[in-house]
C-alpha cells in the first residue's frame, strides 16, 4: 500500500537527489507506521473478524452451535419490523438532529463572532454540553423528561402550556422527538465551535470589498462568508452525520429503544442485540448494513457538495 516511493513532494527539497530521497522515505515510513500499524491491528483486523459473524449463527448463549448460515442474519433483519422501524428512525434521527444542530450552531456562531464583554464565560456555559458523555446526557434528560416527577412536564404545566402530563419517553408519538431534542441539545456546541472558528478565519479584506460594493449584511453572509467557510461546513456535517448515525449512547441512556422499539436506531438496535440478546450474528449483520448506508451517504454527499471542497480524501 505504501511503497514509499515519492511521487511528488510539495517542496524543493526533494530535488536534492538520492540520499535525500532515501531520508524522506525513512521519515515517511517512520511517521506513518505507528498509526497505520495500530489502526490495522486493532481496528480493521477485529472488525473484519466481526464481519464474519454476520454470516454465522453466532449467539453467546448457544456457542456450541455456531455455524455459517449465509445471508440468514440479513434476511432475518429485513423481515423484522423492529429493524425496519430502526432504519426509518435512523433517518429521522440523523436528519433532524443534524439540521437543528447545524442551524442553532450556525446562528450561535454568527452571534458570537463579534467579541462582547463576557463572551468567554458565555461560551463556557453554552459549549460544555459537548464535553459530556452520551450516556450521561441520556440519563440527565431521562430524569428531566420523566412524565411523573420530571421537571419539563412540571414547567410546561405551571406555564399552562399543557394541561396533562406528556409521556415524553413513553408515548411513541413523542419518544423519537424527545430523544432528538436531547441530541440537538448535545450537538449544537460542536457546530458552534467549528463554525465559529471558521467564521473568525474569514479575512476581513473580503468584507471590506463587499462593503465597498454596498452589499447588505445578508448579501455579505451569502456571497462572502458562506463560500469561504463552505469546506468547514461540508466537512463538519459529513463527519457529524456519520457520528450521529453511529452513536447509540444517548438512546441507550434515555430510552434504551423503548417503548416497543419505537426509538431504536440502527446502532442502538445493534447494541441491544449484543448486550441483551448476545446475538453477535444479528448485530454484525446490522453493522454491515450500517456501513453500506454510510458509504452510499458519503458518496452521495461528496458528489453533491463537490468533494474537493471537503479536502482531498
Amino acid at each position, binding site marked *: 500500500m505504501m511503497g514509499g516511493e515519492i511521487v511528488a513532494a510539495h517542496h524543493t527539497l526533494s530535488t536534492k537527489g538520492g540520499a535525500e530521497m532515501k531520508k524522506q522515505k525513512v521519515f515517511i515510513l517512520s511517521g506513518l507506521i505507528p498509526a497505520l500499524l495500530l489502526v490495522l491491528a486493532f481496528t480493521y483486523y477485529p472488525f473484519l473478524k466481526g464481519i464474519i459473524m454476520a454470516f454465522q449463527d453466532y449467539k453467546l*448463549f448457544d456457542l456450541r452451535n455456531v455455524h455459517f448460515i449465509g445471508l440468514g442474519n440479513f434476511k432475518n433483519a429485513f423481515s423484522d419490523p423492529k429493524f425496519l422501524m430502526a432504519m426509518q428512525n435512523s433517518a429521522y434521527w440523523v436528519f433532524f438532529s443534524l439540521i437543528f444542530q447545524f442551524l442553532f450552531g450556525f446562528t450561535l456562531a454568527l452571534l458570537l463572532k463579534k467579541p462582547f464583554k463576557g463572551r468567554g464565560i458565555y461560551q463556557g456555559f453554552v459549549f460544555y454540553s459537548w464535553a459530556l458523555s452520551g450516556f450521561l446526557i441520556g440519563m440527565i434528560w431521562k430524569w428531566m423528561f420523566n412524565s*411523573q416527577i420530571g421537571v419539563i412536564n412540571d414547567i410546561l404545566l405551571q406555564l399552562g402550556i399543557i394541561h396533562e402530563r406528556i409521556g415524553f419517553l413513553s408515548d411513541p408519538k413523542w419518544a423519537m422527538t424527545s430523544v432528538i431534542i436531547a441530541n440537538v441539545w448535545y450537538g449544537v456546541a460542536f457546530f458552534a465551535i467549528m463554525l465559529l472558528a471558521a467564521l473568525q478565519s474569514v479575512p476581513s479584506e473580503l468584507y471590506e470589498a463587499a462593503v465597498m460594493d454596498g452589499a447588505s449584511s445578508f448579501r455579505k453572509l451569502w456571497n462572502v462568508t458562506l463560500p469561504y467557510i463552505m469546506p468547514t461546513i461540508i466537512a463538519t456535517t459529513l463527519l457529524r452525520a456519520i457520528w450521529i448515525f453511529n452513536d447509540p449512547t444517548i438512546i441507550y441512556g434515555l430510552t434504551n429503544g423503548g417503548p*416497543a422499539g419505537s426509538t431504536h436506531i440502527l446502532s442502538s438496535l445493534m447494541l441491544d442485540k449484543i*448486550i441483551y440478546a448476545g446475538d453477535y450474528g444479528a448485530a454484525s449483520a446490522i453493522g454491515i448494513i450500517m456501513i453500506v448506508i454510510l458509504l452510499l451517504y458519503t458518496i452521495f454527499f461528496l458528489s453533491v457538495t463537490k468533494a474537493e471542497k471537503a479536502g482531498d480524501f
Partner: protein
Amino acid sequence: MRTRNKVLALLLCAVLTIGLLAGCSSKNEDEGGKTDGEKITLRMIESLTSPKRTELIQALVTKFEEANPNIKVEFISPPFDQADNKIRTMLASNEQIDVLEARDLNVAEYVNNEYLEPLNAYTDKWSDFATVSAVSKSVGSIGDKLYFVPNGLYERQMFYRSDWLKEAGLNPPTTWEELYEVSKKLTDPAKNRFGFSFRGGAGSTGTTDAIILAYNGDKVNLEDSMFTKDGATVYSTPEAKAGMELYLKLYKDASPPDSINWGFQEQVQAFTSGVTGILLQDPDVIQSLQEKMTEGTWATAPLVTGPTGKALFAAGGAGWGIATHSEHKEEAWKLIEFLSSPDANTAFSKDYGLIPIHSSAAEDEFFKTGPYKTLIEMSNNPDVFVNFKPAFQYPGNAQWGQVAMESGQSLLLGSSGLDDTLKKWDEYWVDQKAKLK
C-alpha cells in the same frame, strides 16, 4: 529553546505515565495470577449488582478470606445493566472465573454452553444442605442437577398505599378483578394519581404471565408452567384471553400512560413518590420503601388470585455456581459453602431484603413480622397460593422477557391485536418445546 523543553517535558510525562500504568498492571498480574506461592486466587463475579449489595457481599468475602488465609478472592462487580453480557463474554473467552452468579433466567443458557459445574457432588458432603428449602433447590436446578446455590429468594407480593385505600374506604384487593376495580377508583390523572404501578417495559412478563397463569388456574402444568396439563401453551386458552383483556383495561383505566415503558426502576419509583397506589414486587424493594416512604402509609398483602381463586406464584433467585473451567473447584465450593451457610445467608437476606434459603431461618422473628409476614402467610396457604416451576429449563426463556415485552407494548399501543399477540406468544413456546426435544 523553551518550547523544546516543554515538548521534552511532555514526552517525559507520557513515558512516566506509561511506566506508571505498566507498573500498576504488572503488580496486578501478580495478584491476579493463579498461585502466589501457596496462595490461591479465586475470581468471583456477581450479576445483580448494586453498590449496596456489593458492599454486603464484599464484607462476607472478606470474612471468608480471614478464615482462609491461603485463599484470596477477587470479587468482580460489573454494572447491573451489562453484567450478564460481561459474564457471558468472559466465559466465552475462557477468562478466569471460578465462582459466578447465575440467575434463574439464564441458568439454562449457561448449562447449555457447559459453563456451569453440577454441584451435587459437593452438596452431598455439605452438612447444612439439609436445611436448604426445597424451593431453593428447585430454583437452582435443571433436571436433577443443582447448578447454583441461591443467595436468597424472590417472591412477588402486593404492596399498597394503606392511607389511600383507607381514605377511599376500600379494602386491599384479593383478586385480579378487584385489583382492577380498586386501582380504577384510586386513579385521578388530574391529581397525578394512579391506582396501579404498571410495568410495560423490561420485566413486563412479571405481570402478563402472572395474570395468564392465575386465570388458567388449575389447568396449568405446575412442573412445566408455560403449558397446560393438556400440553397446549398457557397462551392458547380462552382463560388467557380473558386475563389479558383485564390486563389491557388495567393499563388503560388505572395506570399512568407512561408506564408502558416502565421497568423495575420507574415502577418502584412511582410507588415511592406517591404517583401509584398498588405495586406488585419482590421483597428486595422493601428496604427502598422503608427508606423513602413514611411509615404507616404502606402495607403488604398476598398476591391477587384469578377467577378460580388461585394465584400461581414462583420463587425466583440468583446464586453462586462454579465455572466448568475453574482450576480451583474445591476452593470455589468452599467459598460458596461459606456464603450459603445459614448464618451468612440469613444475615445477607435480612440486610438486602430476600427470603433466606434455609428453612430454619423462617423461625427468625425478623421474617415473622412486618412486610415479610405476608410471604410466610402465602407459603402457609398452598391451596390458594400454588407454587409452580418457571420455565427456566428452556434456553429461550432468557429471551422471553424481551419478546413478550415488545409484543406486549405493541398490544398496549393498539398497533397489534390481542389475538395476534397471544398467537405469537403461543408460537414462541411451541417452538421452544420443539427445540428442547
